[in-house]
């Protein structure tokens, strides 16, 4: 039995299903991200686990124990809110100690645990500060310490890094992962940032319009997206029409040999970094560079080809790059693309 089980969890607001029959099993110590665009139901799901939103139907079970009738204050979950929701009239130490005081923990132990947790999040020496006198990143750490100090069974993170600037966000991602590993706390992160979800989690749950699109390890979902939505949401991708001819597949004028025979109309997904520039060759796809953007460690090309407009990422190797209007030839291996039979009106594989 898994640690936390969401069973056919549904929440309706009027006719609109914010979360529709979501099922998920989370193991102890696992880091799971709920990923999706705004309005996909990820925050509602988190609020249902926290107990602030009552599910319309379905069940939430923690260690095989139904949480339905457990008041939010008794669930023992640690939550980091998007706005941090720190108590501005209390010092950092008092903020962190609040949850321990509610648990009637003796003053001496309380003090010890507050100091210990502040050290864990790198805030020793800030105990007597007031939150409004701290930077966004520091406030974020206070919120994390306040949630961790109660030794929660699950840590819920609601877009915790979205208010930080890009550089600080990356630093906090690394730190968050280290802290989570060190404390071993089962964690559920809600985010709309695919890079953040992939960087932090053991598994990601990609959601769209209240439904789960795919549950997989980040690498797996990136390489083998279950639906075009997942493919698009997890970074840049090329979606091409292809024809299955049994042992071979044809895109534009080129052919690839495939292991599992496919026939009919197919949809091919190729990540931009898998496409290589090649010598002119009848089996390579020819095209003209339309735009070229320098992005530091790589060049981003848009290339007009016979198979359609392709996005190509080429590492910045120091060599002279192609220019706009240059004629180029592209190639990729059969294993670099994910192929799916295109069923009418559905995204099913």
């Amino acid at each position, binding site marked *: 039995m898994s640690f936390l089980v969401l069973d056919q969890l549904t929440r309706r607001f009027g006719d609109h299903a914010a979360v529709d029959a979501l099922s998920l099993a989370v193991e102890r110590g696992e880091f799971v991200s709920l990923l999706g665009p705004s309005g996909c139901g990820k925050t509602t799901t988190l609020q249902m686990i926290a107990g602030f939103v009552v599910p319309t139907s379905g069940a939430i079970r923690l260690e095989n124990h139904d949480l339905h009738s457990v008041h939010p204050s008794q669930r023992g979950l640690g*939550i980091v809110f998007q*706005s941090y*929701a*720190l108590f501005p*009239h209390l010092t950092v130490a008092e903020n962190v100690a*609040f949850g321990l005081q*509610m648990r009637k923990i003796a003053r001496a132990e309380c003090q010890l645990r507050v100091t210990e947790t502040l050290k864990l999040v790198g805030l020793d020496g800030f105990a007597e500060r007031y939150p409004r006198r701290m930077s966004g990143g520091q406030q974020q750490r206070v919120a994390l310490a306040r949630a961790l100090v*109660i030794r929660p069974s699950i840590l819920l993170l609601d877009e915790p890094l979205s208010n930080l600037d890009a550089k600080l966000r990356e630093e906090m991602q690394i730190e968050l992962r280290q802290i989570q590993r060190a404390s071993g706390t089962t964690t559920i992160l809600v985010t709309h940032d695919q890079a953040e979800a992939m960087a932090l989690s053991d598994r990601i749950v990609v959601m769209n319009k209240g439904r789960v699109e795919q549950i997989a390890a980040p690498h797996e979902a990136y390489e083998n997206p279950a639906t075009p939505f997942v493919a698009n949401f997890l970074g840049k991708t090329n979606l091409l029409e292809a024809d299955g001819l049994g042992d071979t597949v044809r895109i534009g004028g080129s052919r690839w040999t495939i292991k599992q025979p496919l026939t009919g109309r197919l949809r091919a997904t190729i990540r931009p970094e898998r496409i290589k520039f090649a010598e002119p060759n009848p089996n390579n796809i020819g095209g003209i560079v339309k735009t070229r953007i320098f992005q530091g460690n790589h060049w981003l090309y848009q290339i007009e080809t016979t198979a359609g407009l392709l996005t190509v990422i080429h590492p910045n190797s120091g060599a002279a790059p192609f220019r706009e209007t240059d004629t180029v030839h592209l190639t990729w291996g059969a294993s670099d693309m994910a192929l799916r039979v295109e069923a009418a009106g559905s995204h099913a594989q």
Partner: protein
Amino acid sequence: MTAADQETSKIIGYALVAPATLLFVAIVLIPLAMTAVLSFNEWGQYSGIQSVITLKNWQEVITDGYYLEVFARTLRIALLVTLITAILGAPEAYILHRMSAPWKGIFLLVILGPLLISVVARTLGWALLFGGNSGVVNKALMNLGVIATPIPFMFTELGVIVALSHVLVPFMVLSVWASLQRLDPQIENAAVSLGAKQPTVLARIVLPQILPGLLSGAIIVFALAASAFASPAIIGGRRLKVAATLAYDEFLNTLNWPLGAVVAVLLLVGLMAIIVGTNRLVERRYAEVFR
């Protein structure tokens, strides 16, 4: 910017504030100064006001127990009204804050509505409700079995306090509501998730954060209650005097303007001292909440 430029912009600045400053001086400072000067003038039953400087009026007000009683009553009424409006207004504002979309607007209007009606009209309404031993309020309370004999409301401090509390409670609600608007909407959930029950959330998280609103509301209500004229005049009548009605009577009935001026100046100075003092104390104590 050169020194000359700075000088010019300074002059332009003064020129721009000049009209408002002149208006303020003409309609506030000059009458106030004249009232203060008036309080030191001599007054006689037959001779009227004489422009000689004397401390006689001040001596009379400070030494005569009658005036002390009036000021004590004013302070007592103002403090009780402030307390009652805080006890009623703060929860009212919190409930309003927690209401959802259509009702919030409707009830905000219900709370603000009375402010659109003249204080005199509202107080006369209370006079009708109180109206002697068989008034509506007394009848209702007796029929409900709350009291056995009628409570005298008219011409008593109790009546004045009830009427003033009703008149002034919207100011408290608005002030507290404004500070509730600044509360992080997730902060109560944060406290709950850490194991706090609702009463603890209110006492330890919400209340400390709305204290600034509660205190500025208290200052507004206290100042308005201490200087209120219409409600004490109608409910309290001519005998149960407060500072404002006392000053009015000295000016317009006894025609002893200098004595009235002393009462007015004392009321103003007393109010200012209390308000500034409280404000200082509170701002120092709750510096973090005010940021």
